[in-house]
């Protein structure tokens, strides 16, 4: 039986027509900040839910000179971040980095780096459910009309009900924002801790939802305001502890369970931020300071 001939793949995997189609959608998205632009999402060689939207956006904007950083949960070494970074290293042969400051494009799932982004950088968010109204109204036909009419009362009712029930707004991630006073937008499932970083960011922010076939964008210096009430202003999470590795505070933390007797420690969620600080000489309380334990620890690194 004949061997079917598999084609060689184009630069960054997608064919040029597809990239052009996606770039058109991106341009439209930039022109209407916060508006979800439908696009003809392709089937990608990784599963839906693994970042197919982000991958398509990255593939469409990637050039040979770009330097790519991929993070998942803030970390460069989570398996899916490794897998996506390898994918682009293979199909586009681009330089990759873990340093936020060195990257021209950062693809992310669930976090925004702690190091402020700068002009000229692009951050690409992987989005599972792009519709901020979806869990209030499951029908796309309805939510599109609600956006068109700027009918966002339901979101406020939901936030109000949280306060009435719990005394707090109970949305901790994917916290809805209003863009340039017009569209309510899902910031992707980042913790609300990261929401303020979107506001007037000098970087271009692109959002890709592959399964749901939507792209949206925030051009640099766009106003992005988290929804709240005058008497219940928007507040971000604050961690009591400092990072056990680099002693950072006021960053987003991962809680690491260290034993089965209630032992736990907090470490930076952003691995690059943590490593940079440690290379600058900061040391957290969780690091062995001297002796054999220090040598062991260094060997493990």
């Amino acid at each position, binding site marked *: 039986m004949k061997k079917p001939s598999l084609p060689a793949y184009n630069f960054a995997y997608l064919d040029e027509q597809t990239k052009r189609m996606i770039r058109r959608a991106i341009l439209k998205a930039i022109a209407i900040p916060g508006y979800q632009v439908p696009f*003809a999402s392709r089937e990608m060689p990784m599963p839906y839910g693994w970042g197919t939207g982000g991958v398509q956006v990255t593939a469409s904007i990637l050039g040979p000179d770009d330097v790519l950083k991929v993070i998942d949960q803030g970390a460069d*070494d989570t398996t899916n971040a*490794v897998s996506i970074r390898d994918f682009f290293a293979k199909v586009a042969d681009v330089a990759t980095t873990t340093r936020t400051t060195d990257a021209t494009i950062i693809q992310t799932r669930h*976090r925004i780096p702690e190091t402020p982004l700068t002009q000229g950088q692009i951050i690409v968010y992987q989005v599972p459910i792009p519709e901020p109204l979806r869990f209030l109204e499951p029908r796309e036909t309805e939510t599109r009309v609600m956006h068109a009419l700027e009918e966002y009362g339901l979101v406020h009712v939901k936030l109000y009900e949280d306060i009435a029930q719990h005394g707090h707004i109970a949305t901790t991630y994917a916290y809805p924002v209003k863009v340039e006073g017009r569209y309510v937008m899902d910031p992707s499932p980042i913790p609300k801790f990261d929401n303020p970083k979107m506001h007037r960011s000098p970087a271009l922010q692109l959002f890709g939802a592959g399964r749901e076939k939507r792209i949206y964008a925030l051009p640099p210096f766009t106003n992005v305001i988290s929804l709240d009430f005058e008497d219940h202003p928007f507040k971000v999470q604050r961690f009591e502890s400092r990072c*056990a590795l680099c002693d950072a505070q006021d960053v987003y933390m991962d809680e690491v369970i260290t034993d089965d007797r209630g032992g736990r420690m907090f470490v930076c969620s952003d691995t690059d931020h943590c490593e940079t600080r440690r290379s600058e000489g900061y040391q957290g309380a969780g690091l062995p300071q001297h002796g054999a*334990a220090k040598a062991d620890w260094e060997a493990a690194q």
Partner: protein
Amino acid sequence: MYVAVKGGETAISNAHRLMADRRRGDRNVPALSVEQIVNQLSLGVDRVMAEGSLYDPELAAMAVRQARGDLIEAIFLLRAYRTTLPRFSNALPIDTNRMHIERRVSATFKDIPGGQLLGPTFDYTHRLIDPSMAGDEAVADPVKRERPTDESCPRVTDLLDGQGLIEADVPSNDDPGDLTREAIAYPVGRDIRLQALTRGDEGFLLALGYSTQRGYGRTHPFVGEIRIGMVDVEVDVPELGFAVCIGAIRVTECQMVSQFKGSTDTPPRFTRGYGLVFGQSERKAMAMSLVDRALRSDEFNEQRLAPAQDEEFVLEHCDNVQATGFVEHLKLPHYVDFQAELELLRTLRREAEIASADTPMSEAAE
């Protein structure tokens, strides 16, 4: 002491190596050939082609083997390959009237022009595991009929149409839509709907079709006809000015004759549900035709109350590659968001403790 988890790269490559080992299994057992899968697991291959929406038995068989027999994984492999293929043109509509029929049954008439033909079916087999199949015993050659030279097998629905008893099948010259090349916008045309259904998950459509039979959007269906066989695929070549046959594919077509409707202008007529699937897959074609009819409720001014009648619900959830991706993505790390929830939950619990401590006993007793 905590050392940040490193080495994702090695872990991934070792996992893939182990998976390849498990796929191959005992090295003393000969490896499966693609020919064996194409020939002996052909209905599995058919399902992969249908839901992968690419007609290529060898590629589908390779995918089944690579996926260790996980058909949804195989469908995904085929889809990911299909999406890279260039589109040259639309084929002409296939003509199932000119099908080289292998099987044809009608439940609405005892006999029909062209006759009923059971063909290669599991129907009427007794589902007893056959010990003789454990070996490789000789299998008798099939009995073949003389192929009539001018066989005419008009579709049962065309016969009904001739008498005006069923809604007319109106041909369209519009290019059909393609949901793999355009974003879907609701409501969609029947072309997109049928495309979504024919790619849709067999199990999901089976359950939905079944639900219409149990009263969730009842359509009073009768199998007008099911036919399975080879049909030619023709493409118009502009340079030549006529259509050229580029090959033949096996398809299963199901015409469901459903609940009649009439209005003040038109006398009552039966309505149609349509199913067409690559390969031999009666279950899928029948389920598809039930769901197609259920989704046409607006056309007949029927109340949309059941899940099977809800276009957005059915179309957004029938794709098993999308569904499996989103369900399974829950196993990816979510600890950042979980941490956010954990923090809030601790705050709420702390406040609840304080509140209950503040409550005087007398009040608590009331």
